[in-house]
């Protein structure tokens, strides 16, 4: 051994956590629900998932090159997570250009315009969906893809059907809602597989259980309590016939609640730093989701509720600063 030693500051050991490990574990947790989406919705779903991921990664590589940053950062998995999440929150029957533009927007505008990884305020995938919803609102709201084996004329999601009183849609049982055999975005339908993925992340300590719990509980309770606005909404027979706990299940498993609660509200960059902050965040998202679902213009409120709460995160962080150790009232200098 020659006399040259490695010198660095303490600590000299590190845990084996890393950004790629976190990102790829999230991809693994999303995989079951993504595969289910491909099973329910067929080839278009597969194409959209692969295409969205490809565009996201390509955009990341291009922008990193433009910003003269090391391209190896594109391999950290964060672009793949954004691409996959974006694919999972759109319907599988949208046009290809919508997927390309949305994935591009998620990475280029919602992430890199703010400074790149760690600097964005809004969840990139949700920001991409909001952009696409505004730019192509007709495509995004008028026709949801339905699972390949449902032979229905109407293409309304359960939430859409209930709000707009679409009689031809359904009936949807609790089982349909839980397993995902319903129209909807290609990754949001299977509550079961999203729950499994979410629990996996909680066990691995990548997700704090308080956030999805407070989000889902608040949303479901308020959805049960707040009445629908308008006389037509909420009148569908198969909904009215549901038992109390079945209705709880309806509000929990419909729409993007599980996907949002387990995978979007828990995104590290755009959620509060502390556990207390996370609970406030989850409750806020739940309140807004229920308000939009019952009183607002859209049938589903998860996307916007998370985006609005993302905006409140710096404020939440400021008010949930950890208690100082050994705090003593400062003495006034005499």
């Amino acid at each position, binding site marked *: 051994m020659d006399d040259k*030693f490695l010198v660095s500051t303490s*600590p000299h050991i590190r845990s084996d956590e890393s950004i790629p490990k976190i990102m790829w574990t999230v991809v693994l947790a999303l995989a079951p629900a993504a595969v289910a989406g491909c099973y329910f919705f067929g080839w278009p779903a597969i194409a959209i998932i692969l295409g969205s991921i490809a565009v996201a990664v390509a955009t990341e590589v291009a922008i990193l090159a433009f910003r003269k940053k090391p391209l190896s950062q594109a391999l950290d998995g964060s672009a793949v997570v954004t691409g996959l999440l974006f694919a999972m929150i759109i319907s599988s029957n949208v046009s290809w250009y919508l997927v390309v533009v949305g994935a591009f927007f998620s990475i280029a505008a919602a992430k890199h315009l703010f400074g790149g990884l760690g600097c964005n305020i809004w969840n990139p995938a949700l920001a991409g969906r909001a952009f696409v919803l505004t730019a192509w609102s007709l495509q995004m709201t008028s026709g949801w893809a339905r699972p390949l084996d449902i032979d229905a004329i109407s293409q309304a999601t359960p939430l859409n059907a209930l709000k707009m009183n679409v009689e031809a849609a359904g009936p949807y049982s609790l089982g349909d809602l839980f397993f995902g055999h319903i129209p909807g975005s290609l990754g949001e339908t299977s509550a079961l597989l999203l729950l499994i993925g979410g629990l996996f992340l909680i066990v691995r300590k990548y997700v704090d259980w308080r956030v999805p719990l407070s989000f889902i509980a608040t949303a479901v309770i308020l959805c049960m309590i707040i009445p629908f606005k308008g006389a037509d909404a909420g009148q569908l027979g198969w909904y009215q016939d549901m038992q109390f706990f079945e209705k709880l299940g309806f509000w929990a498993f419909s729409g993007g609640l599980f996907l949002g609660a387990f995978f979007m509200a828990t995104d590290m960059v755009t959620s509060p730093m502390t556990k207390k902050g996370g609970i406030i965040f989850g409750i806020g998202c739940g309140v807004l989701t229920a308000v939009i679902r019952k009183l607002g213009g859209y049938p589903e409120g998860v996307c916007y509720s998370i985006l609005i709460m993302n905006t409140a995160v710096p404020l939440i962080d400021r008010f949930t600063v*950890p208690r100082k*150790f050994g705090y003593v009232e400062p003495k006034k200098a005499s």
Partner: protein
Amino acid sequence: MVHTFAGGVHPDDSKHFSKDKPIEEAPVPKVIRIPMAQHLGAPCKPVVQKGDAVKKGQMVGEAAGFVSSPVHSSVSGKVADVGQYEHIFGNPVTSVVIENDGEESWADGLNVEASDVDSMSIDDMKKRILEAGLVGMGGATFPLHVKVSPPKGKHIDSFILNGVECEPYLTADHRLMLEKPDGIIQGLRILCKIVGAKDKYIGIEANKPDAVKVMREAAEKVDPSIKVIELPVKYPQGAEKQLIKAILDREVPSGGLPMDVGALVNNVGTAFATYEAVEFKRPLIERVLTVTGEGVVNPKNLLALVGTPIKTLLDFCGLREKANKIILGGPMMGLAQYTTDLVVIKGTSGILVLEGKPVGVHGPCIRCGRCYDACSMHLMPSRLSVLLENKNIEAAQAANILDCIECGACTYVCPAKRPIVQFIKYGKGEIRARQAKERARAEAKKAKEAKEEEEKKAAV
């Protein structure tokens, strides 16, 4: 009640390398070097010069002020040189080089028969502690005679011995507790008698169940009121403030000291050295340390003389081919060295040799919050690291950066591998430099005003 503190991390304890190796005597060096700076406070002034003959235990550097501690020769021989030599912080320090004559002849009045501690006065005991050059041996090296002389008004009701050794790899305290429990207990009794503490505790982490058993038995023989507390394994349980929080459930105030909550903490090694100094008038000239790590062929716990060249100990234990990082201390807070031309000093608890990899480029903060969970001082490490990355010193000070104990838990756990503790050390340094400049400016202003007053009076 579970005795613990909020926060902390769980690194691999890596103690299997050396925890079952009994303490061995390190090879006696032919030449030793005694640095004048082995403690917190003012460095010593040498009191010998080239050519002087010295005896074992003779003082070669006198304390410079109250917060200082004398240093002694650990061998008998001749002074070969007094000059500037390499030191652990990278700045050269005045050191006394002594050639060992091999006689091991003690200075007069030292290494005496055991004195009766129960009949000694407190002042006598404190005098022996000062003369023996005792400092905290856990690593901070605070002069012991200062620590056991709290100012009037600070009543100490609890004394805690720190047998936690929470740093991975190190096992010196563990072996000392297994092999010399009676001396440690006696040291605790001496320290408690001096400060008048009624409640006596010994904190030991649960990864040392044999030490817990041995210390409990030794304590019961002599003083059943001594409570040996087994603590859950978590880094940094051995940090003073965290230990007081876990055992007494009291929080040392920000900017304050343990005596502000009626407690004092000392390492078990310090307690043992106290016993040796007060009963046998032996100055602090040797200590137990661990030479360990993946880069060592034969990890050992060694009883080494202060002043022994590190190279001697590394040759004794053998280094592997890929060993390339020498750390004095543990892996979480130890100092990496660029040379082995150093010596064992009073605070050397371990020599860690690792097969290290160069530090890579760190990533951006992804706001995962793991550092918040790890910080046992309830700070916001990620926010501090971002503020200091952008050189915002004022905001960092407002975010309580000065409370940081630099334990490294936040940096250990960060997925982006951000050097958070390094940022904080930079920030603290900046703040202290600014505070020093402010103080100098205030004093210069006061001096100028006083001078103007004088001139006004003279003119009248």
